[in-house]
């Protein structure tokens, strides 16, 4: 006799064991330590922290290990852990102007106060596989720099703001508590704060493609990378009992400020407008893409045409999250046989009606479809 398809608890438990075995691979090969992942795959760790919206390199490394290197799965693990954490309060806004920089470039000025600092980048490498790494070459240790970087590294957009050439972005009156996307549902029209939070958590690939689409003509924004900077920042929290702010830790961030031309409208003259991108860790591609999409989402507010996919708030913000998207796409693996059966029944009925002679009794047709 047929027994209904049973997943069975035992099958599930066995699949856990097989997964664990698959993740570990050949036991002859030494197991990866979290320190190795954290130190030697920092860009993967950065991405998991950024999209997982939790700054914790150790846990991000754990997530990557547990996810067997699947970045989106690791993001999901970190997010699910993040939900369980208590919220003690908000830190002071970070000032990226006070960053301890590793890298800082501007594509809009040849030189600028503080200078251009390439730092660690793949940009000028020739993408040839380095077989010396295969042979186990150790990286040389880095000699200490000759001179310390300038402590003042003004942001390029601040320099433009001095000349009133770029849209001012003042703190809203009363400095209200920011919208919190992880506690409140997104609603429309979405505030800029909500949009930026959404983009900061968004999938890098999605933002990359959306940003790219604006460059190819689906919502042209004529962007310039005014500045990209990557480095470390102290995070401060105001402690009520002490009456002053104390440093609670240090984070690495990557910031990108794009400027785009704006033709002006009835109210204001032509000026530059900003697109802003910020990620945890070192995430240049993501922060640049984010800045492009942020600017594209401003189009309607600036009275621009706003008819491209990247200008559509609902389209961008509802489809940017890879944990949501991955879950919903993959839910198609769940059984759907009830709905499929309902469709099958209808399809057979309609085909039978189509094939049956005109005017035949409906009851007869329904009988005819049964096998």
């Amino acid at each position, binding site marked *: *006799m*047929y027994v*209904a*398809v*049973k*997943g*069975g*608890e035992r*099958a*599930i438990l066995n699949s856990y064991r097989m997964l664990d075995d698959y993740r570990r691979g050949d036991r002859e090969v030494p197991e990866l330590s979290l320190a190795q992942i954290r130190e030697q795959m920092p860009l993967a760790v950065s991405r998991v922290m950024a999209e997982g919206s939790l700054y914790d390199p150790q846990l991000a490394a754990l997530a990557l290990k547990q996810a067997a290197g699947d970045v989106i799965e690791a993001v*999901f693990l970190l*997010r*699910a852990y*993040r*939900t*369980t954490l*208590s919220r003690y309060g908000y830190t002071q806004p970070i000032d990226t102007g006070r960053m301890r920089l590793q890298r800082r470039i501007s594509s809009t000025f040849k030189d600028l106060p503080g200078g251009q600092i390439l730092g660690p980048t793949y940009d000028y490498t020739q993408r040839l596989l380095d077989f010396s790494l295969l042979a186990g070459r150790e990286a040389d240790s880095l000699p200490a720099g000759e001179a310390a970087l300038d402590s003042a590294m003004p942001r390029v957009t601040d320099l433009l703001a001095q000349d009133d050439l770029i849209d001012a972005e003042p703190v809203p009156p009363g400095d209200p508590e920011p919208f919190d996307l*992880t*506690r*409140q*549902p*997104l*609603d*429309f*029209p979405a505030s800029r704060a909500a949009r930026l939070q959404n983009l900061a958590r968004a999938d890098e690939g999605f933002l990359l493609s959306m940003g790219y689409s604006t460059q190819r003509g689906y919502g042209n924004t004529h962007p310039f990378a005014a500045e990209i900077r990557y480095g470390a920042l102290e995070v401060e929290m105001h402690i009520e009992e002490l009456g002053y702010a104390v440093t609670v830790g240090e984070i690495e961030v990557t910031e990108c400020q794009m400027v785009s031309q704006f033709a002006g409208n009835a109210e204001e003259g032509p000026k530059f407008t900003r697109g802003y991108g910020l990620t945890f860790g070192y995430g240049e591609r993501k922060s640049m893409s984010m800045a492009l999409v942020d600017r594209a989402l401003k189009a309607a507010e600036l009275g621009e045409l706003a008819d491209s996919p990247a200008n559509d708030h*609902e389209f961008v913000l*509802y489809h940017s999250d890879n*944990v*949501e998207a*991955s*879950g*919903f*796409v*993959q*839910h198609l693996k*769940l*059984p*759907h*046989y*009830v*709905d499929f*059966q*309902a*469709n*099958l*029944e*209808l399809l057979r*009925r*309609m085909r039978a*009606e189509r094939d049956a002679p005109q005017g035949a009794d409906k009851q007869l047709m*329904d*009988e005819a479809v*049964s*096998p």
Partner: protein
Amino acid sequence: MTTQQQAAVARDDHYNFGYLDESTKRMLRRALLKAVAIPGYQVPFGSREMPLPYGWGTGGIQVTAAIIGSGDVLKVIDQGSDDTTNAINIRRFFGRVTGVATTQSTPAATIVQTRHRIPETPLAAGQIMVFQVPIPEPLRWLEPSETETRTMHALAEYGGMHVKLYEDIAQHGRIATTYDYPVIVNDRYMMRPSPIPKFDNPKLDGSPALMLFGAGREKRVYAVPPYTRVKSLDFEDHPFEVQSWSEHCDLCGSRESFLDEIILDDAGTRRYVCSDTEYCNDRQARQRPDANPDEAAA
């Protein structure tokens, strides 16, 4: 047959009862109270990231987590079956984070979390059905924008859906929607009943049980309170009708239940069995002592 069993997994004390923290549960309960007060209206809520993937029941799980108490008895079904992998996984999750008793028996359950079916066994007053909802918005395929659809609900502007159903009739001679069939709740809001087959729609109408719907990814909850009118959309000359089979269940002989089709071999030999496994097992058990030869042979 034991109607109740302790959870198959041990309660994990690292997590708060029901996994969510108490303030999140309170936020959810407030949203649910609003949903009950405005039947069929989609209430936005601050959906949390759950340790199960979006699209796999996170809305239903959050609703259940918000309402479940230590005395509750939980049943979880998927496609009408207690034994499908995701139903087992969700049942294990609640075992781990609540330690409540679970059951496969519909009458013994105080909360039934479901995906895609309503049990064949009629529900009673005091029971709560929790539906996992993928897309809560009935107008979504007519209008992709949430801003627009919320306005359409506010104005009860539902003509487009009638036009769509009419186009079905014009093209196919009948309404071609077979599941997630739109309903009007309490003569006001249009609602998606979640992807249950339209076969189950009549069970929503005037049910003595409370029906709660949770969409985690889309961050909405909605409800049908007990004894509320739920009308499936139709036309006077094309009244709403449910699926029927000329076959009967191969295992229990039922001619009233929703049947799943099983393909047995390469030649396309088919059998039909109840989608609701508990209903089917129960009928088989009752037939055993004095088996009716007609039904058994049927």
